[in-house]
């Protein structure tokens, strides 16, 4: 089987039959990251400590060296939960050795990927778990300042995180000489202003510096030159939470969950640990569910989400935020781990946010919604993305207005194939996220697009001459 989405990760080929590795490790599971969220007052320090909170902190700060913490995280196989799935411990080791400092930690809480809300749940209902993870991550990387870049749309998260930070200063978990060691740390909340691109790590860094959030060309990577031109680590909220539990319970415990790496493929980093899956759209019980990496989309929808709503059948689903593309109903048995979605032509696991589309949904409407989102959120720095997303939206507008042509379908595909870092035409991955829904929707549902265009534009669907541009519709 050829892997389209992760050629750099799995070498393009899967060597060992997948099911043999996945086995039944996904069957029984007690929540880890969400263990506290139903407890009254779960956001307070008192409740958090009663439930075993800050145990990992005491275990690490002092008794363990920062490099030991990094080693544990590295050997746990933890991969970043923000979307790219880069091994967290490895990222930390990219920081220059013996740097005089300062080193900065940026926590990416600019969760804006459509369908995704797992970080919100963690920040609102268990903010101390987040803060403990941030402190441990900073200890490991010797960062003395951490900025949590929080999207503006989460006022409750802001309040609760600030409360948690204040409580930590009061109890000596933050500030100077934490737990009597020479480790000092300040955590600051930094609020965004409703821009999706701030979730891209270098866009976040630019925004934090007070500039427009235009992603930077890499290299230099943030680990070498990040915020304020100093070495910087950017980690996701859920990643930080995982660090807490890895230190508390050990790397082997973490590795006992999920899908092990393919022993015959040295480039497969495996999919270990628990994961928060966001489930929304046309299901009976939308929500944030925790499961080991590797449950199938069908398990998530049927066993956690109570099935498709109104007794209908599913038609398709977004596997990990809208950027990742689409599963058809026939592909629902694909496991949601770092390799699974790529096997059916999706971009990847992304944020593991599943949005289910039932049989009544028009794929033209879906794609219009997706294109509108990316046209609105493209930062405008790279021409292929700025123009490509706007052009695809104008085409979808025209198709929906009954003036579509069959030729448009191939044109949309051509745009989809030529924007992004995978074809190599943009600085960041936003355009890949814009391209994948286009490519997946059309390649997997081409008949529906053709039928729609023929039905809505019976006299013009076959015209191939250039059409005069429609007036630009106001989407802002």
């Amino acid at each position, binding site marked *: 089987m050829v892997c389209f989405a992760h050629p750099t990760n799995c070498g393009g080929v899967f060597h060992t039959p997948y099911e043999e590795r996945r086995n039944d490790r996904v069957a029984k599971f007690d929540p880890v990251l969400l263990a506290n969220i139903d407890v009254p007052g779960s956001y307070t320090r008192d409740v958090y400590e009663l439930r075993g909170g800050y145990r990992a902190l005491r275990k690490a700060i002092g008794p363990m060296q920062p490099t030991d913490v990094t080693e544990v995280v590295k050997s746990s196989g933890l991969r970043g939960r923000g979307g790219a799935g880069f091994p967290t411990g490895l990222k930390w080791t990219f920081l220059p050795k013996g740097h005089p400092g300062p080193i900065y930690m940026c926590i990416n809480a600019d969760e804006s990927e459509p*369908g995704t809300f797992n970080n919100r749940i963690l920040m609102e209902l268990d903010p101390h778990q987040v803060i403990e993870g941030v402190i441990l991550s900073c200890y490991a990387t010797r960062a003395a300042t951490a900025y949590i870049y929080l999207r503006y749309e989460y006022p409750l998260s802001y309040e609760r995180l600030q409360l948690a930070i204040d409580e930590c200063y009061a109890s000596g978990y933050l500030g100077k000489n934490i737990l009597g060691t020479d480790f000092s740390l300040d955590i600051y909340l930094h609020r965004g202003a409703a821009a999706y691109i701030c979730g891209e790590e270098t866009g976040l860094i630019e925004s934090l*510096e007070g500039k427009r959030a235009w992603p930077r060309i890499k290299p230099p990577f943030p680990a070498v030159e990040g915020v304020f031109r100093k070495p910087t680590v950017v980690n996701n909220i859920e990643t930080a939470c995982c660090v807490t539990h890895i230190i508390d319970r050990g790397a082997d415990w973490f590795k006992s969950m999920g899908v092990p790496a393919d022993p015959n493929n040295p480039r497969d980093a495996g999919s270990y640990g628990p994961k928060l899956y966001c489930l929304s759209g046309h299901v009976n019980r939308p929500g944030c569910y925790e499961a080991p990496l590797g449950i199938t989309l069908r398990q998530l929808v049927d066993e956690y989400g109570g099935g498709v709503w109104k007794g209908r059948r599913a038609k398709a689903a977004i596997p990990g935020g809208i950027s990742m593309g689409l599963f058809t109903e026939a592909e629902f048995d694909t496991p949601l781990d770092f390799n699974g979605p790529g096997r059916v032509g999706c971009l990847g696991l992304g944020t593991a*946010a599943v949005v289910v589309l039932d049989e009544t949904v028009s794929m033209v409407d879906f794609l219009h*919604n997706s294109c509108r989102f990316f046209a609105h959120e493209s930062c405008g720095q790279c021409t292929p993305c700025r123009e490509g997303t706007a052009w695809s939206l104008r085409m979808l507008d025209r198709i929906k207005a009954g003036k579509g042509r069959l030729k448009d379908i191939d044109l949309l595909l051509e745009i989809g194939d030529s924007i992004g870092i995978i074809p190599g035409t943009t600085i960041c991955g936003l355009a890949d996220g814009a391209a994948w829904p286009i490519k997946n929707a059309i390649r997997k549902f081409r008949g529906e697009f053709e039928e729609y265009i023929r039905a809505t534009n019976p006299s013009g669907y076959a015209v191939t001459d250039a059409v005069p541009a429609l007036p630009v519709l106001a989407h802002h």
Partner: protein
Amino acid sequence: MATAQRILTDEMIKAIKAYFPRYPTRQAVTLPALHIVNDRLRYVPLQAVVEIAELLELHPAEVQDTLSFYGFFKQDKPHGNTRAWVCRSIACALRGGEETLEYLCDKAGVEPGQTSADGRLTLEFAECLGACDFAPCMLAGKTLHKDLTREKCDDFLRSLE
């Protein structure tokens, strides 16, 4: 600009300066400063941009450049008593988000982005509010309105001050 009335109050300046020790550069205080002004004035007029720039030792164009990148800050006039964002992204759209936005706009007599004639409500669309488990949803001020129905929209409009 020398003759223009100063907009930033002492309280705002104090609040902005409180952010200085958090960052190694003054420019990093741009977004916090814009939020501080916007929270109080409900918009960030050009004169405020000039004064923020002065505080942050920047050129006004640098602050304006950042401000204009984010569609969030209004510059022409303050938003209404309540500013509400109705989500139109995919998870909400699948459960009636766009219809909810249309319904609210009709009832309030505005287009997305506009403020009602009585100044009580500024209604806007949002891209994913990150509350897809409560779709369709709306963020009004600091309150998240969940699982919106027409009745809940009516209640919301009636509750406005």
